[in-house]
Every structure is written in C-alpha cells, then in structure tokens.
C-alpha cells in the first residue's frame, strides 16, 4: 500500500510521467517551465511535511518556517558573504535542519496539540525577526535579484536542476520511510506506548524525523532561490504552513506521492483562477471543505483504496481502527 500509486500496475504511468517531466522544457513556453519548477519544489516541501505528519503522527503545524529559514540562510550566505552560491545552497538546508533540531528539542516533550502550538509560536518569533530586521534580512521587502551560478541561471537549466534535486530528495525520503527507522517511526505513530515497550526511543525517533523534514524543507527553500531569485518574509508566515498542510490532505497524507499531487493541483488551480478573478482563497476554502467532508484520505488515498483494495490490507486497517478506538476509550 505504501508503495504508492507507482507500485505494480502504475509503474508504466510513473515512467511516462518521469519522461514527460524531462521533455517538458523542450516544447513548453517559459512561464509553464517556471510553474512546473514551483510545483516541484512546493511538492518537495509538502512531501517533507508529510514525513513527520503522515508517517510520524507529529503535528508539524509550522513547517513553512524551515522552508523560509532555508531560503533566507541561502540568500544571506550568497548576498552577504561573497562565497560561491553553491555553498549558500548547501548552507540553506543545514541551517533549516539546525533550526528544526533546536525547535524540536524545545517542543518534543509536549503532547501533540501543544507541540504544534509551541512550534507556531517559535515560528512566529522567527517570522517577526525576519520581518522587522530591515538592515539584515530586508524586512518586508525581502531580498531580490540573488545572483545565481551561470550553469543554472537560465530558466530551463534552473528547471532541470530543480527536477533532479527534487527527484533525488524524494528518493532519499522514500528510502528513509522504507528503512527500519521509517518503520519504527510509523510504529511510534500508531502506538507510542507499545513502541516504547519494545525498546524504541520514541522521542529520539520523532526528533530525527523532524530534523530530516526540516532539512528537506530547507532544500525546497534553496530551490526557490534557484527558480525565483527572491526571498520574502511570507515564506515563513503561518498561513503558508497551513496551505502546505492542505496540499498534504488533498493529495492524501498516508501516501508518499500524495503531497506532490496536492501541491500540483493547488498551484495549477491558483495560477488559472487568479488569471480571471482576485478571489483565490474562497475557491481554495471551498475545495478544502469538500475534501474534508468527502475525501478524508485525499485523492491518492481514495484511488489506492479503489485500485489496490485487498482483504489482507483491509484486515490491517480494521486493526488500526480498533487500536485507535481503544486509545480513545482509555
């Protein structure tokens, strides 16, 4: 089930999409290449959120902070230090991972909802500092015209760079999820008490998951600079975090590629709806409500349910439900 839609029957579809992704720049106009790059990196951001959220069961409410910190760290490295931009691009994800470690250490001992709330408060603090510190971060103007290395300065090359980095990151995330560590993490999600009893250090697993998620959010932040050459404080505002959560939910949180699909749908919708009206949050909100009411497992989750339904997995799900119910009752 966790193989995603590209397991088994879907493999041909997966290869076709991959080939198309590599061929798109040959015939698509520049705007669509830009759009595709944004979809890819936002999809990476959403996938990195889905890792602690869907697989770890951690209420990562303020994920955008790591995205913004990664982007700002890279941008500041490039514009202030005079070192090669490549060092900046590498520094971004590590800065994000470091912030994630610090915030994780502070928040991890709290229960789920408190965790999310403390994370939002710490994140808002970082947002305010970025927003107000004009002399260093450029305040609400952000930083514009960040110089890029020549290799990736054209939009086509930036797209290929984004595509390759995104695919690599997705592959690494996939491997992590399907490693013993990933299985243990899912164990801590489903039953923390039982996991602790069989000797899994629950807090440590969650913390590592948070650091990994922060790192890949930072990668997405660095990629945003490659594609757009700007950073601005809205990248770490809490509304963006919730939008990314919406992407995860729309695509399906317990699926690997669901968040990517959700990001693609939402960004395409936004681009085309804002073409003819100023009202974008209204349709987004309505879409969100219908997903919550009619597709609580997301689009990919629904497709998987229909395509790969098998009695064995169903038995598994029933058991999950029972575990959750007993957890509720106790």
């Amino acid at each position, binding site marked *: 089930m966790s193989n995603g839609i590209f397991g088994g029957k879907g493999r041909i579809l997966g290869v076709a999409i991959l080939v198309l992704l590599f061929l798109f720049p040959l015939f698509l106009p520049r705007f669509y290449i830009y759009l595709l790059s944004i979809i890819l990196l936002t999809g990476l951001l959403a996938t990195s959120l889905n890792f602690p959220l869907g697989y770890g069961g951690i*209420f990562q*409410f303020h994920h955008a902070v790591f995205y913004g910190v990664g982007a700002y760290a890279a941008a500041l490295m490039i514009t202030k230090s005079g070192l090669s931009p490549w060092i900046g691009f590498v520094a971004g994800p590590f800065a994000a991972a470091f912030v994630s470690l610090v915030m994780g250490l*502070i928040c991890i*001992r*709290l*229960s*789920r*909802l*408190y965790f999310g*709330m*403390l994370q*939002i*408060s*710490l994140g*808002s*603090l970082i947002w*305010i*500092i970025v927003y*107000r510190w004009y002399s260093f971060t450029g305040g609400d103007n952000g930083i514009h015209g960040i110089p890029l290395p020549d290799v990736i300065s054209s939009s086509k090359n930036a797209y290929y760079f984004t595509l390759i980095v995104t695919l690599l990151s997705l592959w690494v995330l996939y491997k992590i999820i399907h490693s013993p560590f990933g299985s243990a993490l899912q164990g801590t999600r489903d039953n923390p008490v039982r996991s602790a009893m069989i000797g899994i250090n629950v807090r440590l697993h969650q913390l590592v998951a948070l650091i990994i998620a922060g790192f890949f959010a930072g990668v997405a932040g660095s990629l945003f600079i490659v594609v757009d050459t700007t950073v601005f404080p809205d990248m770490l*505002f*809490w*509304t963006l975090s*919730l939008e990314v*959560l*919406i992407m995860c*939910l729309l695509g399906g949180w317990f699926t690997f590629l669901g968040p990517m699909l959700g990001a693609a749908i939402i960004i395409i919708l936004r681009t085309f709806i804002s073409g003819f009206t*100023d*009202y*974008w*949050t*209204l349709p*987004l*909100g*309505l879409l*969100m*409500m219908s997903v*919550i*009411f009619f597709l*609580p497992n997301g689009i990919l989750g629904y497709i998987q349910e229909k395509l790969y339904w098998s009695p064995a997995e169903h038995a598994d799900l029933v058991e999950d439900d029972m575990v959750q119910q007993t957890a509720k009752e106790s």
Partner: protein
Amino acid sequence: MDLFTAIFSPKLMSQILVGLSRTVILFIVASGLSLILGVLRIPNIWHGSLYMVGAFMTFTISGAFGGGSMGFWMALILAPISVALVSLIAERSFFQHLYEREHLMLLLLTFAFSLVFGDLVKMVWGLEYKSVPVPRVFQGSVHLFGGLPFPIYNVFLLAIGPVVAIALWIIVNKTKIGKISRAAAVDREMVGAVGINVSWVFAFVFMIGCLLAGLGGALVAPTVNVSLGMDHTLIMEAFLIVIIGGLGNVWGALVGALIFGLAQSLGILIWPQFGIVFPYAAVIIVLLLRPTGLLKSTW
C-alpha cells in the same frame, strides 16, 4: 525615591494602561477561543475571521445609524449578535458532523472557513481601510500621571473587561447550561446518556465563543484601522494566549492576555523596533517552564 519615580514614571504607567486596554481585547477574543477549545475541542482558526467580521459589521451598523453615539451602541450590540448567528449556522451545517474527527481535520476545516470568509469580507467591504468614529461620550482623553494623555475610550475598555469576565464566570459556573457544558467537556457520552441533548449544548457554547470574537472586533473597531488581514495576527496571538493560560481554561485566557498585552506594551518601551518580539518570547519562556500552561487545562 529615585526607584519610586522610576517605577511610577508617567511614561511607564501610561504604557501599562495601554497594555491593559489591549489585554481587554485579547482577553475577550481569547476567552471565546478557549471556551470552544475546552468544550468542543475545536482549534478554531475561524475565530480570527469572526473578529474581523465583527469589526466590519460595527463599521456598517454604526454608519447605518448615522455614525453617532447611537450608531456605536447599536453596533456594539448588533455586531456580536450577527456574528453569533453566522457561527450558529456554520456549526449546525458543518462543524457538528465532524466532532469525532481528528483535531487536525477540525483545524483545517476552520482554516478553510477563514479562507472563505477572508474573501467574503473582501467582496462585501472591499480592500480599503475603514475607520469607525469613537462615540462622542468617549472622545478626547484624560490626563493621568503627570499630564500624559490617555484616551477616554481606553478607560471604557478597561471598564468593560471585568464586566465581560464576570458575565462569563456567571454563565460558565452559575447557569444550568454552563454546568452542562463543563460536564460535556469532561465526558460527552455520559452527559448524553443522562438525557441531555449534547449537540445543542455544543452549538450554544460555540455561539457564545463566537459572540465574544464579534464583541472583541466591535470593541476594537474605533481604535484601529479596520482592514483585511487583521484576523491573521490576532488569531495567532489569541491561540498563544490560550496555550499559555492552559487549554480550555477561561481564567487562563485572562492570565495569558495579561502577560501578552503587558509584554507587548512594555516591550515597545524597551526596544521600539523589536517590541513585538517580547510577547512571543514571554510565551516561549512560560511554555518552557510550564509546558501545559499556567492554569489547569481542561484537556
């Protein structure tokens, strides 16, 4: 003597009063949020939008009554009531079907509502700032503490804070429905089993909570530019207040609002550029010392 004058310096005292009037608004909004969190377990992001709607309603209603004192008083009564009615409709048609779902789903549903209402407010009231005139009774300022002016409207705010707090205490502790809702917060099924219609109790609590959001919006309207986006910062502040006070504890909301409001106003005095950082830092310190909030949480 030096210390005395330093502590009771007019500037500091008037800044504290400004902080306290901010506290009143924060308390009114956060207590509604806390009530909903405590009884219904909904992390209601929509609350901020209702606050904004309350402020815009105040603008429209006070304009409809000619913009004078009469208009303000009518708005102060009618704006919260209309917000409460909107929330009741939303609760009956949407929220009540989702109480068994995860917090995350409820959070996202309320966020969806706030997205929809953000655009609805834009459609109805447009993009421009709106300003609501201060009623004639409260125009001007009094001179306290060595002559620093303090707006009379803020004195009115300081007076209304305790009134709301006492009214809320009476509703929660002394009325039958308040007692039922406190019981429902602890064990919903048991309350249902003794023959009480829990669903409508929840609707009532939700409505009261949202009424408080509308009241906060109506009260704040004459002191600020009523604008789009005023929900975004406020809802975050209200959530943090509820968290540091203890989830679902209405008195916690009071304590949290005091900490938040005073840290904000005194922070500006200490370091003008980063004054806004202080309340967030205070929240972090409180949560590091007491991870589940200062007062007992109902969760």
